[in-house]
């Protein structure tokens, strides 16, 4: 079946959108093999977004943990400060080739919204970003950035006022305005073909890691660690290692205040299989299938589902998914800042935290790659708040 990862994925969307996603799939299948399209995308990724991103040997972190050698994949150094730009440049270029003039997007932490607003500005397209009202409070700086870039930011107050509701609102908007509009989905989720398109555009991360680590170490890493909300930077970090069974692939979910509390967003640890937002996958839900209100300090991981390919990698055992709490993530946020002078996004800090747990249990000849999916400037105010300090942004 098309667009399936085992039993997961699919196209659970209203009939109104079916021809649109079919048209998108056709366009993608055409342009992904088009030399002009790929040349233009490569040029944008290199000249505009600053790729390839660095694979940095974190010497002081390695020494402090006294175990496996740690490399950081620096997606935080991309233009706009996160991995989101990789996917957005691809989709914006695709939308433009399809004759669309308007991009809409959902955003949680604001990084995908900023990336979409950036691509829209660059390509002369109009842009509307949907953002939960809770998230607009948590990520005020990114709201300002999006508006500065010319995007309209729409506050979503329905439901829990977070990422899930922003996704619902963006789909509803797409259902009412299709002709000139492309929904630039920010993660490896939603109906087919999005999980595949977004994965392909993010796979550049593992393509580079692989080449960089081979060049530096002459061998593959023992583990690749990335944070997972919908899971786009994780699938991008995993993709070119999936057939190398010697490389452990580890996704770090946001456990919020803990997987035994109701204030968590750890989908694999606490959810079960369901159908929502266009896909069959794991979701946090109650026994009647009502989607659970989820919580994490990280607005970007505060989502009750996970991309369908991750559900498949979990079921087959090819990737492992571990929960990381707010407290652990904040500790890692501070640790990396002090040890390496790198302030990671609070999302990425979930991955750093697990590396801090894992590295000391491994010998010094082992290699871990941690993807730093974004930079942490946007999170300083909320981490300060978490530590009981109020700072003015």
């Amino acid at each position, binding site marked *: 079946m098309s667009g399936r990862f085992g039993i997961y994925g*699919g*196209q*659970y*969307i*209203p*009939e*109104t*959108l*079916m*021809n*649109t996603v079919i048209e998108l799939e056709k366009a993608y299948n055409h342009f992904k093999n088009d030399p002009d399209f790929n040349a233009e995308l490569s040029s944008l990724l290199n000249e505009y977004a600053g790729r390839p991103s660095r694979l940095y040997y974190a010497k002081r972190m390695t020494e402090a943990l006294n175990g496996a050698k740690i490399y950081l994949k620096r997606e935080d150094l991309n233009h706009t400060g996160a991995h989101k730009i990789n996917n957005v440049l691809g989709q914006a270029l695709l939308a433009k080739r399809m004759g669309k003039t308007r991009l809409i997007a959902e955003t949680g932490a604001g990084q995908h919204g900023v990336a979409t607003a950036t691509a829209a500005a660059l390509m002369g397209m109009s842009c509307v970003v949907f953002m939960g009202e809770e998230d607009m409070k948590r990520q005020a700086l990114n709201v300002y950035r999006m508006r500065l870039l010319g995007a309209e930011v729409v506050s979503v107050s*329905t*439901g829990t006022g977070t990422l*899930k*509701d922003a996704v*619902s609102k963006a*789909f*509803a908007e797409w*259902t*009412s*305005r*299709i002709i000139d509009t492309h929904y630039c989905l920010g993660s490896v989720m939603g109906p087919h073909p999005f999980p595949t398109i977004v994965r392909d555009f993010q796979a550049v991360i593992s393509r580079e890691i692989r080449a960089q680590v081979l060049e530096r170490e002459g061998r593959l890493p023992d583990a690749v660690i990335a944070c997972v909300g919908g899971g786009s930077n994780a699938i991008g970090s995993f993709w070119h290692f999936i057939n190398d069974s010697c490389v452990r692939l580890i996704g770090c979910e946001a456990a919020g205040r803990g997987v035994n509390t109701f204030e968590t967003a750890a989908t694999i640890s606490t959810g*079960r*299989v*369901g*159908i*929502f*937002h*266009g896909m069959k996958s794991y*979701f946090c*839900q109650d*026994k*009647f*299938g*009502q*989607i659970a209100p989820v919580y994490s300090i990280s607005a970007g991981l505060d989502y009750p589902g996970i991309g369908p390919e991750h559900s498949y990698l979990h079921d087959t055992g090819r990737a492992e998914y571990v929960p990381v709490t707010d407290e652990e993530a904040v500790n890692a946020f501070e640790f990396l800042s002090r040890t390496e002078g790198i302030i990671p996004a609070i999302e990425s800090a979930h991955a750093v935290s697990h590396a801090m747990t894992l590295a000391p249990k491994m010998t010094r000849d082992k290699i871990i790659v941690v993807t730093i999916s974004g930079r942490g400037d946007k999170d300083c105010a909320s981490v300060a708040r978490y530590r009981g300090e109020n700072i003015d942004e």
Partner: protein
Amino acid sequence: MSKIRAAFAKGKAFIPFITCGDPDIDTTKRVIHEAVRNGADIIELGIPFSDPTAEGVVIQSANYRALRNGVTTDKIFDMVRELRVDIDIPFVFMTYANVVFSYGAEKFMSACKEISADGIILPDVPFEEKGEFLPVCKSYGVDLISMVAPTSEERVAMIAREAEGFLYVVSSLGVTGVRERITTDLAGIIESVRKNSDVPCAIGFGISTPEQAREMSRIADGVIVGSAVMKIIARYGTDSAGYVGEYVKTMKDALR
């Protein structure tokens, strides 16, 4: 002939939509009784979902209110069982894929059969995904209602050929909600349905006035009205039954 199709044989059908449990199950029961007494031909019963992505703000709010007040799928099944004592017209459930999937499709459809619920509408299950639920619907005699939309174009024929019960013709782009004007070429869509199937066509999304209903009934076999009904319930709460009854009568009269 299924009970749903038989309901269209008596003339143009009026199908009110009611979100179950808004504001509470007792009110929903009284509203349904009044709707039936005033001429509703089929009742579309919404099982609330936490994230009703195909709904506009009116039905969204009805979903939230009902869930806040503690309604569950099981309580709705119990309600329908009680209503079946003296109501015979077809009931069609409307909910989202996850509500059925999570309950267990087999268990859900078996309950539908037991309480004589005749059909189900799942707006997030298009033609390509209906295999998820269709076999189990068939084995319990529940009609899985298909939808066509203004954007369906060449898909209309394929969908119509396999449609059961009735075909839900979505009048407009976007989500549910009252609209002043409907600009889609519905006659064209229904014409291509007729070429491929004799399934009755009911138009929904955006209809609220008797004039709109009458206009739609010239080309279709029935009309579905949701947001206008739920607006009455939002306004009058537990006292809604009589007001919904009056509204149903006006709408049904417009279709006679």
